[in-house]
């Protein structure tokens, strides 16, 4: 099912579909970050992915581009899943919001901004959500120490 969707997506957006990976029966497509809103709108309206399960950022420190934003989509009528990813550069990480496509993206994107430091253009309400407003830094980045900033590293064993 997701295979046909990827074919459809390739037919419509061609060069914007950068990669397609299959792992444990799940399909992941990497697409051009600049076209994420058009692609998501197309997936919602023409492929039936009406439910955004989850949206999050991943930090691949050391890779270029450094960040990824991951959209886990679900189609309630055909019961199929699809994962869409975009790559985001380290310098001034920002992407367009999809909260106009699925309202549920609103809080997910706020969380992604708060914890990962990826900002979203045209977001209706981009504030920190879990951490206090005056917090410095974005804790889920790989270069943010687990014990927090300005603290001695934990000397015991974590694992």
């Amino acid at each position, binding site marked *: 099912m997701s295979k046909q969707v990827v074919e459809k997506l390739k037919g419509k957006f061609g060069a914007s579909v950068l990669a397609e990976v299959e*792992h*444990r029966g*799940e399909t*992941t497509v990497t697409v051009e970050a600049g076209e994420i809103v058009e692609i998501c709108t197309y997936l919602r309206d023409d492929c039936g992915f*009406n*439910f*955004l*399960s*989850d949206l*999050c950022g*991943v*930090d691949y420190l050391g890779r270029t581009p450094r960040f990824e934003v*991951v959209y*886990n989509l*679900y189609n*309630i009528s055909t*019961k199929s*899943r699809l*994962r869409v990813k975009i790559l985001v550069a380290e310098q001034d990480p920002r992407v367009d919001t999809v909260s106009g496509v*699925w*309202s*549920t993206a*609103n*809080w*997910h994107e706020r969380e992604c901004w708060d*914890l990962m430091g990826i900002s979203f253009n045209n977001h209706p309400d981009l504030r*920190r*959500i*879990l*951490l*206090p407003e005056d917090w410095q830094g974005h*804790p*889920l980045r790989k270069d*943010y120490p*687990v014990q927090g900033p300005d603290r001695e590293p934990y000397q015991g064993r*974590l*694992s």
Partner: protein
Amino acid sequence: MATETMTINMGPQHPSTHGVLQLILELDGEIVVKATPHIGFLHRGTEKLSEHRTYHQVIPLTDRLDYLAPMSNNLGYVLAVEKLLGITDKIPERANTIRVIMAELTRIKSHLVWLATHALDIGAMTVFLYCFREREEIIDIYEKISGARMTSNYFRVGGLSEDLPEGLVDDIRKFTESMEGHLETYEGLLTGNKIWQKRTIDVGYISGEDAVDIGLSGPALRASGVDWDLRRDDPYCNYSDFDFEVPTRTEGDTFARYKVRLDEMRQSARIILQGLDKLKPGPILADCPQVCLPPKKDVVNTIEGLIHHFKIVTEGFKPEEGEIYVGIEAPKGELGYYLVSDGSPHPYRMKIRPPSFVNLQALPQMVEGVLLADVIATIGTLDIVLGEIDR
């Protein structure tokens, strides 16, 4: 005459916000003009912590997300790790059936706390006491199985930590069979009650379309007419072998969500009884020595068993590079785990999709334009737990 709105603060210490939720309410008289939730007071950095632990060491962290349904969180996590490892098919039948039984007991347990606190918020105290009486019995079952009343940490990657203790099957059966009578008691106190109906019918309405758009899942979505349940539509464990119905309603109000959850408890009881009948002796851990801890008797009796245990505890196991997403039907909705592995013994990234986080997002649009008193009913009906919202 000049009028102005009043801004009031509700929570984070208000009892009917079900934890540390803060709502900033802008009121025009008694009508809510705007509601802004503030969350994060219970943020413990579960996702960050998990990146520094082995896969097995993350299981106790998941207990503390939705602390009213710890086994559902455990289940979602272990299923995700099993998928990442590619050993989903190797889980023994007995382990799967026990997982289903415990997940459904957990659903009843979670729904009992929802009904108890929801009814208490609206003013029906008797129901609160009855529900907690029944919940206590489930907690006793938890304690017999895992030694802990709330943070069970019972499931393992590959199966279970231990088999059910002797005689527990009868305890579970006795409890489950009594549940139908208890549910009738609750319904007798509430369903036909004029006050209950006035406080719930047409309160906190959300249409099916809006609910999907905002990401509602679980009973809250099914009460708005969207027939979607991951246990049936994307079966995990061995749910496909069970015979159950998915209760739905179309009204989309607080009363509909109340009825859906009560019917869900009946279906859960049905699933548990089928599971108990299905239960046959057999292994409770997959035959995957690279992943699963060896049986305790080998660890204490043989040097090979001890080394095996030691290696898995200190080093963990290394799933191959890749990423997966697993969603399960937790009591409150779709609980998702997105796991990325870089081939090391620690999750490279773990994103939890907590149902309460997404469901709470719907609160502002459900309460804007209604009376202040209905905000309390709407928070209750969404069944949120701040432990998993803040993570």
